[in-house]
């Protein structure tokens, strides 16, 4: 979990989950990497621990592939990178591609990030339905070769009310009657 020193206030993805509007679905996907140093692989990327990280071990671009069993609505992707501890390993240019499989990925977004520690959210215009997402690190700070990525989380919008096609209720009075539990 994020240690207080590392997480800027208001940027904690856990907070985001607690709002109930999004849900983390990384556990429903198959993750793979283009390369990694032994002991610094997918597990470290997905272990909810900002101290451990993925270190790539090949040539750029470094890729994180996320494949779902079924077409999933993805709303947001959160990547945690920490310039203070990683310096030249910190990714600076990230490209997000979506598609059905490795052969028909299309770039959705390219972002250049500067600056300090943060969670980086490359959100999309509206939630995208896809089978596969590829996060590519095109360049690092200070032109570093390999990259560290400490955590990636992927979010889907929460289905609205259990009945009817309406958006979420906002008051407790409404929500009380929404479902029988």
């Amino acid at each position, binding site marked *: 979990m994020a240690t207080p020193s590392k997480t800027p206030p208001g940027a904690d993805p856990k907070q985001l989950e607690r709002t109930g509007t999004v*849900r983390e679905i990384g*556990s429903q996907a198959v993750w793979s990497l283009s390369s990694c140093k032994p002991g610094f692989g997918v597990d470290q990327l997905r272990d909810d621990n900002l101290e451990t990280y993925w270190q790539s071990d090949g040539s750029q671009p470094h890729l994180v592939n996320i494949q779902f069993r079924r077409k999933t609505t993805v709303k947001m992707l959160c990547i945690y990178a920490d310039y203070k501890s990683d310096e030249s390993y910190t990714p600076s240019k990230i490209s997000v591609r979506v598609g059905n499989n490795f052969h028909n990925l299309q770039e959705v977004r390219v972002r250049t990030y500067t600056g300090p520690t943060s969670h980086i*959210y490359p*959100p999309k215009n*509206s939630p995208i339905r896809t089978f596969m997402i590829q996060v590519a690190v095109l360049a690092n700070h200070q032109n570093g070769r390999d990259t560290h990525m400490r955590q990636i989380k992927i979010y889907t919008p929460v289905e609205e009310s259990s*009945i009817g096609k309406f958006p*979420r209720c906002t008051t407790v009075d409404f929500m009380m009657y929404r479902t*029988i*539990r």
Partner: protein
Amino acid sequence: MTVLQEPVQAAVWQALNHYAYMDAVFLAERLYAEVGSEEALYLLATCYFRSGKAYKAYRLLKTHTCSTPQCRYLLAKCCVDLSKLAEGEQVLTGGVLNKQKSQDDIITEFGDSASFTLSLLGHIYCKTDRVAKGSECFQKSLNLNPFLWSPFQSLCHLGEKLDPDQVFRLSSLHIPVAPPPPISPAQNPSHRLDTALMETPQDTLELNRLNLESSNGKLTSDSTVSYIDSSLISPDPCSLLANTVSMGSTGSLLGKPNKPKSGRSLLGGPAALTLCLQSVSRIGPSKSVFGQSGNGREVLPIPFSQSQGSAPHSSTSPQVLSPTLVAPPNIQPRRSTRLFTSASSTAKENSKKLKMKFPTKIPNRKTKCKAAKTANSNLNESLDILKLDSSMNDSKGLSTPGYQSITLQRAATDMVLYMLRELGRGYQALCCYNCQEAISILSSVPAHHYNTGWVLTHIGRAYFELAEYTQAERVFSEVRRIEAYRVEGMEIYSTTLWHLQKDVALSALSKDLTDMDRLCPQAWCVAGNCFSLQQEHDIAIKFFQRAIQVDPGFAYAYTLLGHEFALTEELDRALACFRNAIRVNNRHYNAWYGLGMIYYKQEKFSLAEIHFKKALSINPQSSVMLCHIGVVQHALKKSDSALETLNRAIGIDPKNPLCKFHRASILFANDKYKAALQELEELKQIVPKESLVYFLIGKVYKKLGQTHLALMNFSWAMDLDPKGANNQIKEAIDKRYLPEDEEPVTEDFLYDSAADVEESSMTDADDSQLHTAESDDVL
């Protein structure tokens, strides 16, 4: 060798009464090694079972033959506790493959413990899917012993409609014979019997008292007959009682050798009985009767009881028929003592039986009696009779104390049965989901009963089923204050807090319960609900699975787990969970609702409707359920029936805002804009802060072409939705023709500017875009 047994048995029972299980087990093991009789076997098994080691008792009884009913009952109980239901059934009825005994045979065989045996058997049948037989067993058990709550509860759970007034009353079976007015000598024996019975610890006394009272209930002239055959293994409690009762009446106890007699018929018998009461221990006919019924015939006990029975009868038969106060009192002590003591002290009776043979050993019992007696207070007056017996040779006339005691006992019995009836009616109403009625019945019990955990928990549950969560929460917090150790019903409390979104209270409750009892499923259900409220569904799933592990027969845990899987979009697993819940408890309407909800999510509307209707058939008063059915019917294009259903829902519970909301949306879908608007205006008054209401109003206005009103309402909706990112609202606005001719708001505009992005900033930007014409009034 019998000489050896008595003191040892007494010591064992004393240890058991003082919960010193290690001592009891050790002594019982020595006794069994020494004697090897079936009684010793039973005693040892009882020690194991009471010390919590059912498996030891099970293995012990399995390896040695047990033919006595007590042993078989204990073995069956161990089997059920170890979930070996088939074996338990075989022990009790002779097995699935062999010819099975009928329930009447069982009644005959087990005698006094027949009511418990039948209750256990009913439990086995219900768990093995033979519900009809199970309910029959429960009914019979209640007939035999109206003080048993668990068969009544099981029958209510099965959905049977019982009449508590009929159930909780003393039937003729229970009515003891009305002995003639007590004659001192006669009374002595009877008293002794009673006292002997009283030797058991206080609770037995309680029972006795109850017995007495219950016996008060129905004295019939009939009763005089038949008690005498103590030798009978008659299952008929009356007969047993009669024996005891008769004690009081006459002084001349004739000791009578075994007299096989069935039921009540005995009038003539008594005379034959020789009175060896004085010499015989007071074990009391009831006890001996029990012993006999349990273990076949014992000569000594029989004469004792018989003599008691007979003597009064013979001497007072004409009097017996007249229901005098005296008669009942005599009877009552016996009856109740018999009925209840037998239950609790059958084993003791066994031992006592033995003791009877050795009157000299009586002092043990006397001390016990005295102890027991002194323990009682009030109604002990009625038990005074018994106390009088404490001295074997005490032959005071008991008539006066007898009357008083009997009246008191009768009053107490009536009181208890009245309470059982009232609570039974309330519970029955709750199980049929007549919640208002249940609340009114349960609220009208006397204050000292009202302020107990059980009553308040069920009232709270009734409010919960009515979806009046604030009331329920109030009642449940009262329960927590009064009985902090109560876990039954806490899962309902936790769901109430979940609905009300009171996370602090819920997490406090969860911590408290899991600290208190880690082995009860309710605590884990509460913990799961707590994390579910915090949107941490994976952890909630883990806790619900733990609840299922702790108790696989707890249906609600499966239901809650199903809901969590539904929230994490794992619909197949959710379906499996709901089906499991239904497997455990067919009348668990929440699980039927859950199935319907999953099918609705999968857009299988007709399946959803079927399941919702099934849930509704179980709980016809749920407005939420009707609301859902209405929505499903609308999805199936049956809008008229949908509207009708929603009208019904609103009729049942006018406070349910969702019904009105859905009705408005259906009217909107059917192009009845005016009616929809009217509905929504009313709804605005009821729930002014709900963004959905404004959203729908906006859509209606949009359809009507009143764009400025629509925009106004959409912006209000967005304002009221603090988490923003409500795509539907934004989309609705975007599609509108905006007079300012602006581009639709996109997120790019916002995110490109900063590394840190906050959700709310987007909303602000949107607002600024839309802000042109509409007013900024926020309610």
